[in-house]
């Protein structure tokens, strides 16, 4: 299958400071890939290089011609001096009909917000509005940069379930950046552990056992990981009865 995005030998510098070096990465249609790494490991830079917002200093990023990317940034960062309704925001930069906008909001789990001011929404609502906007172009790839930052644990879990639902409905690939490995992992086909370069990658349970991962995150996350897996089995569409072993079922897609 032709990859949606292929990254070869990517390096990025901010001034003289190397942020990423020698990153090789390929995204297949329909897969969910989670990028984890400590603060300052270059996660956001990798995402910004994928969407074309930062130029590589070496290597290259090849996107499938005409690839439709839906991007959900870490934060909207709306300046309070800029008045903006949800409806108007969804029409940027391409205007969309009202029914299409309403449908996107419905899919993202926030129906009926169209006429509200974005500045009056909660953090979770803003993230879902950003998700709705990303869904407007019928993306083949959803790119989410720490989308659950500032959400509590149930809020994050609900958000991830929404992403999974969207993936199974539309078949789009998902690239998600997270600092909360324990929440994301269960939904992922593949996890990439980043710290300036790719330390390790593979199926979630492989990465959780990897020495490189443990060196970065410590072993303490093990318990939290199990916690979410358990919770996760209630919402997934198959392998319910396998409980803790269901992650192995996902491994085949990696």
């Amino acid at each position, binding site marked *: 299958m032709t990859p949606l995005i292929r990254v070869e030998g990517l390096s990025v510098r901010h001034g003289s400071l190397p942020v990423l070096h020698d990153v090789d990465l390929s995204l297949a249609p329909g897969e969910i890939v989670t990028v984890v790494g400590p603060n300052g490991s270059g996660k956001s830079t990798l995402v910004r290089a994928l*969407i074309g917002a930062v130029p590589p200093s070496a290597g290259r990023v090849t996107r499938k011609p005409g690839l439709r990317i839906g991007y959900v940034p870490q934060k909207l960062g709306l300046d309070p001096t800029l008045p903006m309704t949800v409806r*108007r925001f969804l029409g940027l930069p391409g205007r969309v009909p009202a029914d299409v906008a309403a449908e996107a909001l419905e899919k993202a789990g926030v129906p009926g917000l169209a006429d509200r001011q974005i500045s009056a929404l909660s953090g979770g609502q803003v993230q879902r509005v950003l998700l709705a906007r990303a869904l407007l172009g019928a993306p083949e790839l959803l790119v989410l940069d720490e989308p659950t930052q500032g959400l509590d644990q149930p809020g994050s879990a609900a958000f991830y379930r929404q992403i999974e639902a969207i993936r199974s409905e539309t078949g789009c690939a998902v690239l998600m950046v997270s600092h909360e490995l324990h929440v994301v992992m269960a939904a992922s086909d593949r996890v990439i552990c980043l710290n300036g370069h790719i330390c390790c990658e593979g199926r979630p349970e492989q990465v959780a056992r990897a020495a490189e991962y443990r060196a970065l995150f410590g072993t303490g996350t093990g318990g939290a990981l199990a916690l979410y897996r358990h919770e996760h089995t209630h919402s997934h569409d198959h392998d319910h009865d396998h409980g803790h072993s269901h992650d192995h079922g996902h491994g085949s897609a990696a």
Partner: protein
Amino acid sequence: MSLLDGFLARALLAGLGVALVAGPLGCFIVWRRMAYFGDATAHASILGVALALALSLPVFVGALVVALAVAGGITVLTTRGLATDTALGVLAHSALAAGLVAVALLGLRVDLEVYLFGDILAVGRTDLAVIWAGALAVLALLAWRWQRLLIAVLNPDLAEASGIDARREQMALTLALAVVVAVAIKVVGALLISAMLIIPAAAARPLSATPERMAALAAALAATSAGGGVWASWTFDTPTGPTIVCAAAALFLCVTAATWRRR
């Protein structure tokens, strides 16, 4: 006697031209937190005025060239790691001082006060043509790139993900700002141009639910200030540029008071 023969009519038309473009462009200045950027460009344009006079060029040309150079210089300095406000301070004050020194060295007899505070009552037909041409050109630029400018101002990464070069949109805004400063310098003067950019936009904010409404309202409020200011300065024999700004400030106060009462 045609309408343009009266200096009061010309002053009014000049004020309206500046107001109509300063309103919407001012919204972008406010949204991008570029308030001091406008200030710096305006101050620096005094150097352009001095150079234009020395070279017998139109004042508009000199002001435009220097305003663009300062805008470019600020962009370069900030990408090299100087904080924006520091870069602005360095360039704006240097250019303003260099302008004043140049005026003295070149032995020019210039009433600098005219360029600092504007002299709208002395606006001629050519000035009117320059102001309206500049204003309409900038309004056309804003209308043409409106969607792209908005998303680039809102979140540069979202713009890039949609295939829009956020830095190019930023440069379009800088160019627009330089043009407006250059055409407005004779009307409200270098020191007051930022006020015309910022006060009407700030007054329009609490009354607006969408960016389009804020831009339209800012234009209307700026035009009202221009009209009211010209009338008041004629009636009370006050300097016109500052009177226009006072009118804008009065409108801002009214809106602020009204929105406070509503709460």
